[in-house]
């Protein structure tokens, strides 16, 4: 026997399901431009039919449907694309740091410019050539000394600027560590919220979106591996060590390593180094140690090669007073950052040893020094200019490679983001159609209610015992 009011409940369920579906479409429309938002879909399903097999089973056709319900609010997302996008973000982070470091070095070098190191070298050798023609002329001696000190200033300034860039990369690393730690704590907090929502059987869609945004941020900072558990919480590992655990999280620590004077990344509370392969953190350490560090050591080699070669030749000659030459450059240098002229030359122009024989008119030693330009320097295995040109040229090659790689990464990132948008993005057209669909469904359900109502009116009003 059918209950009198059976159809009313079916209509009510349809009304409520349509309303819920409209709510979800509205939520989608509202968040159409929210970054990281993943579209949601009302999954409508028929409710359990009537009747179930039992001894009280009625002898009539069955089962009869009992209406509709929103079985699930589904988040339309592809986990693979999310992982790919994180991978690309990490690699982009590395390349962006590399590209930034290299283009800064390029700007600093200012080659091929009128004021680059190369023209300072040219001027330096040129001043020795000039001195060789008239070694007794104090104007030419002064020219030689000032070309030497401009060269020293240029090398020193370059080295100091690169060092300060190294320091600022180190500071950025520390700031980045603070950001990563804060992300880890927020992810841990989200894990807890998500777990409690999942435990009561709901889908924490918007929390998951928030978590994905945080994971994307984190993956730009460092390469992460994300493992999702059955309770929808995630474990995030960095270089094989758990940053965010299912319950709780670890923190990074950037303490100054006395050996290098720069910060070293360890896991706080564990004496373990952080293994990084990609992302901004890895990029910044590479920027600091490999790109800037390597450039500085090249500059140091250039400076010590120059100092050794010029000093050796200078000491073979005689100064304007006929005394054996002292050091032209201060020999106590530790690198390009403290290259300077020798004290004797700074104090007295006569101390420049232009003469090979001791005669005031002899410029043969100045010529010998000018010719060092074309000579292979022992410590470098090539001439100073070739070495410098090699440094500039390889910087150019690396910078161009970084530009290209960064472009490729950006293209890749855009492609993946397009794929994700195609999968998870809100299409307003689609939501409009959904609105229309559910609106019509709502109207139809209301109509059903109307019919039921009329039936009951017929039953109660027309057949009523009160008549």
């Amino acid at each position: 026997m059918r209950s009198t009011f059976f159809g009313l409940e079916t209509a009510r369920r349809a009304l409520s399901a349509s309303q819920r579906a409209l709510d979800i479409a509205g939520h989608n429309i509202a968040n159409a431009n929210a970054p990281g938002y993943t579209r949601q879909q009302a999954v409508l399903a028929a409710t359990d039919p009537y009747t179930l097999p039992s001894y009280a089973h009625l002898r009539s056709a069955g089962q009869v449907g009992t209406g509709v319900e929103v079985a699930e609010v589904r988040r339309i997302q592809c986990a693979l694309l999310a992982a790919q996008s994180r991978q690309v973000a990490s690699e982009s982070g590395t390349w962006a740091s590399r590209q930034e470091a290299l283009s800064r070095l390029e700007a600093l070098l200012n080659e091929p410019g009128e004021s680059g190191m190369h023209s300072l070298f040219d001027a330096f050798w040129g001043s020795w050539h000039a001195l060789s023609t008239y070694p007794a002329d104090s104007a030419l001696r002064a020219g030689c000394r000032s070309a030497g000190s401009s060269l020293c200033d240029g090398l020193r300034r370059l080295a100091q600027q690169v060092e300060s860039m190294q320091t600022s990369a180190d500071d950025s690393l520390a700031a980045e560590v603070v950001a990563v730690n804060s992300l880890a704590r927020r992810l841990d907090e989200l894990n807890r919220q998500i777990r409690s929502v999942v435990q009561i059987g709901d889908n924490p869609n918007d929390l998951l979106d928030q978590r994905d945004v945080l994971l994307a941020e984190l993956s730009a900072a460092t390469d992460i591996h994300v493992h999702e558990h059955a309770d929808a919480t995630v474990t995030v590992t960095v270089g094989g060590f758990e940053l965010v655990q299912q319950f709780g999280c670890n923190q990074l620590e950037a303490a100054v390593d006395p050996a290098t004077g720069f910060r070293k990344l360890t896991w706080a509370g564990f004496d373990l180094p952080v293994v990084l392969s990609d992302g901004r953190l890895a990029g910044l350490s590479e920027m600091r140690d490999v790109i800037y560090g390597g450039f500085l050591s090249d500059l140091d080699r250039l400076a010590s090669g120059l100092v050794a070669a010029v000093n050796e030749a200078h000491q073979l000659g005689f100064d304007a007073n006929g005394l054996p030459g002292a050091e032209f450059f201060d020999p106590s240098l530790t690198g390009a950052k403290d290259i300077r002229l020798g004290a004797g030359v700074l104090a007295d122009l006569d101390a420049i040893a232009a003469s090979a024989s001791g005669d005031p008119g002899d410029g043969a030693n100045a010529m010998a020094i000018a010719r060092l330009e074309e000579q292979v320097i022992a410590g470098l295995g090539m001439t100073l200019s070739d070495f410098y040109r090699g440094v500039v040229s390889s910087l150019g090659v690396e910078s161009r490679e970084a530009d290209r790689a960064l472009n490729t990464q950006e293209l890749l990132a855009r492609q993946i983001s397009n794929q994700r948008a195609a999968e998870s993005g809100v299409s307003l057209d689609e939501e409009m159609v959904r609105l229309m669909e559910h609106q019509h469904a709502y109207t139809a359900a209301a109509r059903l209610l109307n019919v039921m109502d009329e039936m009951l009116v017929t039953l109660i009003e027309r057949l009523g015992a009160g008549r």
Partner: protein
Amino acid sequence: MRVTWGMMVDNLLAGMSGAAARIQRYQTELATGKRVNRPSDDPTGIGRILSLRSGIERTKTYLANISQAQEWMTVSETALQRANDILALAKECAQRGASDVVTQEGRQAIAREVNGLLDELLALTNTKYLGRYVFAGTANAAAPFAFTGDPPSGWTFAGNAGEIRWEIEPGSDLAVNIMGEGVFDAPDGAFAALIRLRDDLLAGNIEALGGDDLQLVNGAQTLVLNALGDLGARGRRLEQARSGLEGLRQAFLENLSGYEDTDVAEAILNLEMAESAYTAAQGVAARLVRATLVDLLR
């Protein structure tokens, strides 16, 4: 494939910023006139550009050295030619003094003339070029020659035989100075010849005047002429080096321009292409914000 609003906007923005970046690049190329503005613009070319610049700079140095050497040698040459003239006059004096018709008073007058020639010779052997005594070797800060006695009975030489070598081509240098020591200071040089001539004139030693003295003066003149010939040869060497260097410099400049300078026609064409891509992207943006389904559903 589902196409969402966000995708269209993202792609449009990417396209626009790409076109804007290209416009900026070509504008920089055109504004600076340089194709290579940083090492990564042409990593292999940058090495060539830098070494060409060094090459040009060094060629300038060599050309300057050559000009200076030519001036130095012109000054030396003038002095040597005058020395040659003096020695020619001295020969004339010796021939006149050797003649029987000249009286002893006449010879003493000729001897005074020779003393004048000696003074002139001293002045020109102490010729300076920009503060340096050209016949003094490398000890060229002070006058190399001086007389002892008045009238001069001998001379001193304070210079040396040091060569002043200047680099005139890559790896090749040239002595620019003529050794005063070899030309004037020698025992058979001009000073010795003239003093001997004057003494013989004063002594009336006719035989020596016509014979040994004349030969001595001739010998001194040969030394001067040899030095002049030597200068001429070095002058030709300088000229050769100069024309070689000028050719080299021209080639360097052309090469550098080829590596470094913007091909203006190409850059303008590229700029126009980038600009039209940018305009097209803007046009798309203007169309994109038109009606969606929202406007059509009522």
